[in-house]
C-alpha cells in the first residue's frame, strides 16, 4: 500500500474516533488533512480522550505534546504512520 492512501485512511479513522469520543458536536464541514485541531473545536480534555482512543484503536501511544506540536490532521496522520500505525 502506498503512503498516501494510508494517510487518507488514517485521516478518516481519526474523524471516526473523534466523532465517537468527543463530548460536543464538532464542525466537520471542512474536515480534511488541512484541518487544525483548533478549527475542529477540540478542548484540552477532548484531546486527552483523543490520545486515549487513538491508542486503543490504532495501537500507537502519543503524548499530548505530540498533538500540540502538529499543525493539522494531515501531519498527525503522518506522525501516526511514522510511529507504526
Amino acid at each position: 500500500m502506498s503512503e498516501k492512501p494510508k494517510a487518507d485512511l488514517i485521516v478518516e479513522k481519526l474523524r471516526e474516533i473523534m466523532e465517537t469520543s468527543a463530548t460536543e458536536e464538532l464542525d466537520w464541514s471542512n474536515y480534511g488533512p488541512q484541518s487544525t485541531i483548533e478549527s475542529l473545536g477540540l478542548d484540552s480534555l477532548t484531546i486527552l480522550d483523543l490520545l486515549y482512543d487513538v491508542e486503543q484503536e490504532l495501537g500507537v501511544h502519543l503524548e499530548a505534546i505530540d498533538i500540540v506540536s502538529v499543525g493539522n490532521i494531515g501531519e498527525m496522520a503522518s506522525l501516526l504512520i511514522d510511529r507504526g500505525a
Partner: protein
Amino acid sequence: MPDRSSSYPASPRRVVVTGMGIACALGIEETVVWQNLMAGKSGIGHLRAFDTASYKIHIGAEVPEGLIKGKLKELRRRPIDRALDLAVVVAWDALTQARLIARKPPWSEQDVAVLYGTGVGSAQSHFNAFSTFFEKGPRSLRPTTVPRCMYNAISAGVSMQFKLTGSNYVVVSACNSAANAMGTAFRMIRDGYAEKVLCGGSDGFFDPFFFGVWNNIGVLSPIEDPAKACRPFAEDRRGTVLGEGAGALVMETLQGATARGADIRGEILGYGESSDASHITRPSVEGQAKAIRMALDDAGLQPGEIALINAHGTATHSNDATESKSVRTALGSAADRIPVMANKSYFGHALGASGILETITTLLALERGMAPPNLNLENPDPACNLNLIGNKPTSIDRGPAMKNSFGFGGANGVLIVGPTT
C-alpha cells in the same frame, strides 16, 4: 452581598419558581407529562438500555428513546453520561422558561447558582471505567475518568454549558437528594445568599452493574406486567420500580421575578429536614414526622391548611406503611381530608431525582387545581390510613401542598410549595 440584616427573620424574602424542566418516562415536556398523568398512563416498560435476561427484574421507567439525544444535538453536545445529559436538558428548559437565557447560544455569564441532587451520580461513567479496569487493567483507564466520574460533574457540566457563575455543587442523600438540593436553594435565596438558583436532581442508572445491585437488595417489584408493577399504598404492593429522570427549577425572589416580569409558576413556602439516626434502610416515623413538622413551622402553616400531599410513596411495604404513620403523626386528624397522590407508578423511582420530578408534578397540580389519579390502588392498604386519591383525577382546594422525600440513610426532606398568589 445582599442585605439580610434588618428584615431577617421577621420578613424573609419570598421565593418563587419561574422556570421548570422535566425528563422522565412520561416525556420531556411538562404538558406531555401532565397529559399522561391525567390519562393514567404509566411510562414503565421492559428495559431497552441493556439485556436483562440474566436479571430477576426486567422492567424500569426509561425516558422515551431518542428524546435526550435529540435535545443534546440541538445543543451541539454528544452524550457524555446519562445523569449529566439528563441534567443539562432539563436545565436548558428551566432556564429558557424562566427567560434567563435565549433558546439558542451565545449565552453570557450570569450569577445563577446550580444545585443538583443525585443518588448515584455518574453511574454510566463509573460502569464504563470499572469495565475497562477489569478487562484491560489500570493503564487502560480513560484519562478523563476523573472529570466524568466525579459527582459534581453534573452541576459543573450544567454550570459550564449555560455560563452560570454562582456556586455549583451536588447534594447526595440517596432518594432525598433533590429535596435537600431544593431546600438548600430555597434557604439560600430566602436568607439572602443568592438571588437565583437552578436546582433539582438527576439520576441515570440503567447500566448492568447498578441495576444488578438494585435487583439484589430485594425492594424491586417482581410483578412482570410493567403497568401494574408499582402499586403505592396498595395492600398488594410488592416493591418499587426504578425510573431514570431529572428535573430542574429556577428559584428566585418574588421581588426580583416581579421586577423583571417573569412568569411565576409557584412559590416555595417552607422546608424541613431531619435524620432518623436509627437504621440504614428502615425508615422511622419519628424522623419523618419531625421533618414534616419542621416544614410546616417553616412555612408558618397549620396542618389543616395543606391542600395536597405528594407522598414519597415508593410502593415498598415498609415505606408506605411508615410514611402513612408519619403523616398521621405530624398532621393529626387533618390527614383525614387532605388528598394524597403518589407518582412512582407512572415514572418509577428516580432515586435522587424523585423529589424534583414529584415537586414539578405537584406544582403542575396546584396550577390546575387538579391531581392525577393513583394507579394500581384498587385495594388500598388499611395500614395506610390516608385520604388516597382513587383511579380518577380529583379536584383539589387552592392552597399549599406538601412534598415528602425520604432516603436510605434515614435522610428526610419535606418541601411545602404553594400556588402563585
